[in-house]
C-alpha cells in the first residue's frame, strides 16, 4: 500500500516542548494554596493494626490527617476486584501498605511528621516465596493463596513420553524488576463535595484511575475527572499504581479543602509501587532423535504479591507465550499466580511473557544439546508456519517466516562464523566471548476476549480552520502515541501531519479508548483513529461540500461550511471485534491475539572469567511487526526495550528482606547506562498484514521478551555455565560455574 505520511519519520509531535524544557510534567505544576501530601506505611509484612499514634514535637493540629475512616465510599482501589484497600483498615498485608496520609504546605515539617507517626501492629506470620505460597505455609489470600490458575491443553502430552527419544527437564527463575521510569510517580488533586474530584498526574490509563475514584468517593462518574500530564515514562509501572496515589491525593484534598500534591521520591517509588512479577517455570520436553518437539509440559508460576491487582492478566499473557513460536503436537501449560506478603507486583512491559520466554529459550538450548543438534537447527525444525496451531489451539492465519528472520539475524550478526570462532578461541582465554539468540513471538492487544470487553472508543472533530483533532484516552509517555495517531489521521484524510492535533487525555473530554498497555495502541486504537478520521471525511463527502482529490484549503473551506450549516463536525467510533476471532475463556483456547509480532534476537557477550563481569558487546534485533508506522520511533521502541532487557538479564537485582525492597536507590539498583548498552542494530522485515492501520501490529513490549534469553544463551556459550536464573549477576555466574566444577 502506497502511503504518504505512514512509514515516514516525521518529527515527534511534542518534541519541541521536550527539548526546550517547556513540557509540563506533574511536578512542574503548582496551584495556589497547594499542600504537599505524604503516605505513612505499615512497618510489618503482615499483621493487625492495634493503634495509630501521633507523637513527637509536631503541630499535629496544623496537619491534615487521613485514615481509612475518612474514606467517603469504598475503601478499595478498584481494578479487577475489590481486594486492595486504599488505606489499611485492621490488617496490613505487606510492608509498603499505606495506612495514614498527611498533608501540609511545609514539605520539611511534613517529613518530620511522617517519622513521628507510630503504627502499632500485632504481627501475623507472613510468607515471601512462591514455594511457601504454593505449600500454603500460611493462607494469606483467599482459600489457597491462588489469585488465578489456568490450563492450556493441546493434544495429549502423556502419550508422548514413552515414544520420545529424549526427555529434557529444567527449572528456570526470573527476578522482580523495577520499571524505573526516570520521572517518579505523582499526582495533584482538587476535591470538594461542591466541585467533585479532579486529579492531574503521571499515568498510563486515565480511565482506570477514574473507575477507582468513582468507587472510592461514591460520586457519579461526571463528578470525577482525571487528566494526564506529560508523563516521563511508564513501561507498565504507571498502569495501576497511579490510582492509589490519585486516591490518596484526592482524600487529602477532600479533607483539607486545598489542592494537594503527592510526588514520590525515588526510594518510595521503587519500594512501594509495582514491579515485574518474579517467576518460576518448570519444563519437561519430549523430543525425537531428529529434533522434533513431541511434547512440552510447562508449569509457570508468578508471585503476585499481597493483592490481586493485574496478576490474572499477567499470568494469562505469560502462560500463552510460554510455548513460543513452535509447532508441537502436544502441549500442556499450567499457569498460577500466587500471593505473598510483598507489595503487589504488576504490569511491566512484556507482562508475563519475558518471564516465560526466558525459561523456554534457555530450555531449548539445553534440549538441542541433549539431542546433539545446534541450537538454531533445533528451532528451525520446529518453527511454526502459517496454518499450524499454537499451544492455545489458535490456527496461525498470518504469514510467518521465522526461518527468514533467523537468516537475517544470523547474517547481520555473523552468527555462524562467530559461534565457531569463539568456541575455538575461548579455551584458556581469560576473557571469553559468546554469541546466543532467542526466537519468540508477542501477541498484540488484550488477550482473548479482552478487546471485545473493553469496547474502546475514539473521537475526532474538525475545526473551521480545517484542523482535525483526535480525542482518545490513550496516553503519550514517550512511546509516540501523539505522533503515530497524527500520522494515521493525516494519512487517512490526505492532510499534512501538522494539521492534526491530539487532545490531552482528560476523562471529561475524551472517550475511553482503553488502557495504554499490551502493545495495543498502534494496532487497535490506531485503527479506530483511522476510522474516526475517515468518518469526518465521509460526512464532508456526503454533505456535498467536498470531493475526492481535495487539498488542504478546500478541506478547510468545506469544514467551515459544514460547521456553519450543521454544527459540529465530529465522529465517534467504537471497536468492533473481528467476527473471525474466537476465544474460549473456560477451555483457554482459541484466538488469543488478533496478530503476533515475530522476532529473532542475537546477543554477543564477553565474560571476564576472573571477575565474572559480563558485557553485551553487540546486539542484533530482527522482527516482523507488520507495517512500521514511524521507523525512528519504532527503532527507538526496540532499542529502549532491549536496554531494559539487558538490565533484566544482567544488572537489575532487587534485594528483598521480608517482603521489602532494601536496595531502593539508584546507587544500588543498577540500570544500564550509556556505557553498558552497545549499539543496537534493529531490522524490520515488513510484511504488511497486521490488523492495524496500513497493516501495523504491536511493537512496544516485544523487545523485552527475547533480550534476556539471548544474552543468557550467549553467556552459556561463552562459559559453559548452565544458566537457570536472571538477573545473572557476577556472583550468580561464579556460583553456577563453581557448581559445575565441583
Amino acid at each position, binding site marked *: 500500500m502506497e502511503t504518504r505520511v505512514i512509514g515516514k519519520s516525521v518529527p*515527534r509531535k511534542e*518534541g519541541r516542548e521536550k*527539548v526546550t524544557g517547556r513540557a509540563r510534567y506533574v511536578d512542574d505544576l503548582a496551584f495556589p494554596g497547594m499542600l504537599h501530601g505524604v503516605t505513612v506505611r505499615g512497618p510489618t509484612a503482615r499483621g493487625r493494626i492495634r493503634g495509630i499514634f501521633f507523637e513527637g514535637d509536631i503541630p499535629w493540629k496544623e496537619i491534615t490527617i487521613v485514615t481509612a475512616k475518612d474514606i467517603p465510599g469504598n475503601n478499595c482501589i478498584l481494578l479487577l476486584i475489590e481486594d486492595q484497600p486504599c488505606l489499611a483498615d485492621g490488617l496490613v498485608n505487606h510492608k509498603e501498605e499505606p495506612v495514614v496520609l498527611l498533608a501540609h504546605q511545609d514539605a520539611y515539617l511534613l517529613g518530620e511528621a511522617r517519622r513521628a507517626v507510630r503504627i502499632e501492629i500485632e504481627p501475623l506470620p507472613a510468607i515471601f516465596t512462591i514455594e511457601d505460597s504454593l505449600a500454603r505455609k500460611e493462607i494469606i489470600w483467599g482459600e489457597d493463596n491462588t489469585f488465578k490458575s489456568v490450563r492450556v491443553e493441546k493434544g495429549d502430552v502423556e502419550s508422548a513420553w514413552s515414544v520420545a527419544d529424549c526427555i529434557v527437564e529444567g527449572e528456570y527463575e526470573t527476578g522482580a524488576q523495577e520499571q524505573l521510569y526516570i520521572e517518579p510517580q505523582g499526582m495533584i488533586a482538587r476535591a470538594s463535595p461542591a466541585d467533585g474530584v479532579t486529579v492531574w498526574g503521571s499515568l498510563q490509563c486515565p480511565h482506570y484511575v477514574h473507575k477507582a475514584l468513582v468507587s472510592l468517593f461514591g460520586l457519579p462518574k461526571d463528578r470525577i475527572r482525571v487528566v494526564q500530564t506529560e508523563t516521563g*515514562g511508564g513501561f507498565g509501572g504507571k498502569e495501576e499504581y497511579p490510582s492509589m496515589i490519585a486516591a490518596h491525593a484526592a482524600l487529602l484534598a477532600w479533607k483539607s479543602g486545598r489542592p494537594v500534591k503527592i510526588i514520590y521520591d525515588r526510594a518510595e517509588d521503587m519500594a512501594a509501587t509495582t514491579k515485574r512479577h518474579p517467576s518460576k517455570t518448570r519444563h519437561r520436553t519430549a523430543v525425537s532423535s531428529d529434533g522434533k518437539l513431541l511434547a512440552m509440559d510447562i508449569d509457570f508460576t508468578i508471585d503476585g504479591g499481597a493483592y490481586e491487582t493485574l496478576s490474572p492478566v499477567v499470568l494469562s499473557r505469560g502462560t500463552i507465550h510460554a510455548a513460543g513460536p513452535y509447532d508441537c503436537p502436544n502441549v500442556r501449560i499450567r499457569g498460577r499466580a500466587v500471593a505473598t506478603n510483598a507489595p503487589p507486583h504488576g504490569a511491566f512491559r512484556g507482562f508475563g511473557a519475558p518471564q516465560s520466554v526466558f525459561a523456554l529459550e534457555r530450555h531449548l538450548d539445553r534440549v538441542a544439546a541433549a539431542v546433539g543438534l545446534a541450537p538454531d537447527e533445533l528451532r528451525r525444525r520446529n518453527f511454526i508456519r502459517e496454518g499450524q496451531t499454537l499451544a492455545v489451539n489458535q490456527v496461525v492465519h498470518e504469514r510467518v517466516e521465522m526461518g527468514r528472520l533467523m537468516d537475517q539475524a544470523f547474517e547481520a550478526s555473523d552468527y555462524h562464523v562467530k559461534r565457531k570462532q569463539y568456541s575455538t578461541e575461548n579455551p584458556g582465554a581469560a576473557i571469553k566471548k559468546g554469541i546466543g539468540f532467542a526466537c519468540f513471538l508477542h501477541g498484540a492487544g488484550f488477550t482473548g476476549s479482552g478487546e471485545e470487553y473493553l469496547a474502546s472508543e475514539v473521537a475526532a472533530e474538525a475545526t473551521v480552520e480545517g484542523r482535525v483533532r483526535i480525542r482518545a484516552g490513550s496516553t503519550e509517555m514517550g512511546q*509516540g502515541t501523539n505522533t503515530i495517531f497524527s500520522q494515521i489521521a493525516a494519512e487517512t484524510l490526505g492532510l499534512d501531519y501538522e494539521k492534526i492535533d491530539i487532545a490531552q487525555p482528560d476523562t471529561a473530554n475524551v472517550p475511553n479508548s482503553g488502557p495504554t498497555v499490551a502493545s495495543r495502541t498502534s494496532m487497535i486504537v490506531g485503527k479506530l483513529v483511522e476510522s474516526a478520521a475517515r468518518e469526518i471525511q465521509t460526512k464532508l463527502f456526503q454533505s456535498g461540500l467536498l470531493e475526492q482529490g481535495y487539498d488542504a484549503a478546500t478541506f478547510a473551506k468545506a469544514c467551515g461550511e459544514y460547521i456553519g450549516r450543521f454544527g459540529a463536525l465530529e465522529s465517534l467510533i467504537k471497536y468492533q471485534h473481528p467476527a473471525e476471532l474466537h476465544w474460549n475463556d473456560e477451555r483457554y483456547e482459541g484466538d488469543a491475539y488478533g496478530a503476533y509480532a515475530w522476532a529473532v534476537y542475537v546477543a554477543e557477550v564477553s565474560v571476564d572469567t576472573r571477575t565474572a563481569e559480563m558485557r553485551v558487546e553487540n546486539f542484533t534485533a530482527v522482527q516482523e511487526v507488520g507495517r512500521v508506522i514511524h521507523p525512528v520511533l519504532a527503532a527507538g521502541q526496540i*532499542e529502549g526495550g532491549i536496554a531494559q532487557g539487558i538490565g533484566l538479564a544482567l544488572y537489575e537485582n532487587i534485594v528483598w528482606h521480608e517482603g521489602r525492597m532494601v536496595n531502593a536507590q539508584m546507587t544500588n539498583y543498577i540500570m*544500564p547506562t*550509556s556505557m553498558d548498552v552497545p549499539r543496537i542494530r534493529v531490522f524490520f522485515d515488513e510484511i504488511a498484514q497486521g490488523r492495524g492501520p496500513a497493516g501495523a501490529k504491536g511493537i512496544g513490549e516485544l523487545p523485552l521478551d527475547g533480550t534476556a534469553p539471548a544474552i543468557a544463551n550467549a553467556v552459556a556459550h561463552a562459559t559453559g555455565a548452565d544458566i537457570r536464573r536472571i538477573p545473572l549477576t557476577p556472583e550468580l555466574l561464579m556460583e553456577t560455574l563453581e557448581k559445575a566444577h565441583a
Partner: protein
Amino acid sequence: MPEGSGKIQVRCTVNNKAVTFEAYPMARLLDALREELRLTGTKEGCGEGECGACTVEMDGALVNSCLVPAAQVEATKILTIEGVASGERLHAVQQAFITNGGAQCGICTPGMILAAVNLLRRFPEPTEVQIREGLSGNLCRCTGYTKIFESVVAACGESERDA
C-alpha cells in the same frame, strides 16, 4: 529546613540574566531553580546524584543540581535547559534530538541535552567512546541510548556554528 539556619540571599547569573533568590544555605540548587525561579525544565529523577535529570552547567561545568547547595551558587553562572535555545531558534543539539529520536518521554532530555552541549564544547568531533563517557552520568530508561548517540553525532558539525 532545620531551625537556626536562616535564609541567605544568593546572587548569580541564570541563563545570562542576573538573578537574586532567597534560600537556606543547604537548600538544593535544583529546588531554587524550580521553585524560586520557576524554571521547571530541570528535572528531579533521584535526588541523590545518580540519574543526571537535574544536570545544569555551573561556570561551564556539568553539575547535578540536586547535590549543589544554594550557598555554593553565589556569583556563579548557571545554564539550564531554558537557556540553551536562542529565543525560538533551537540549538543544533536540540534540533538533532527531535530529528533523530533522541527524546522519547523527555524527562531525561533537559539534562541529556546539557550534557551533550557541554561534551561538544569540549570535543567538537567526539569519538563514540567520548560520547558514551560524556553521557554516562545521565540515565535514560526509554531510548537505550542509541538514538541519543545518533543525535549527538548528527549535531556535531552543526554545533560549531551554533556555539
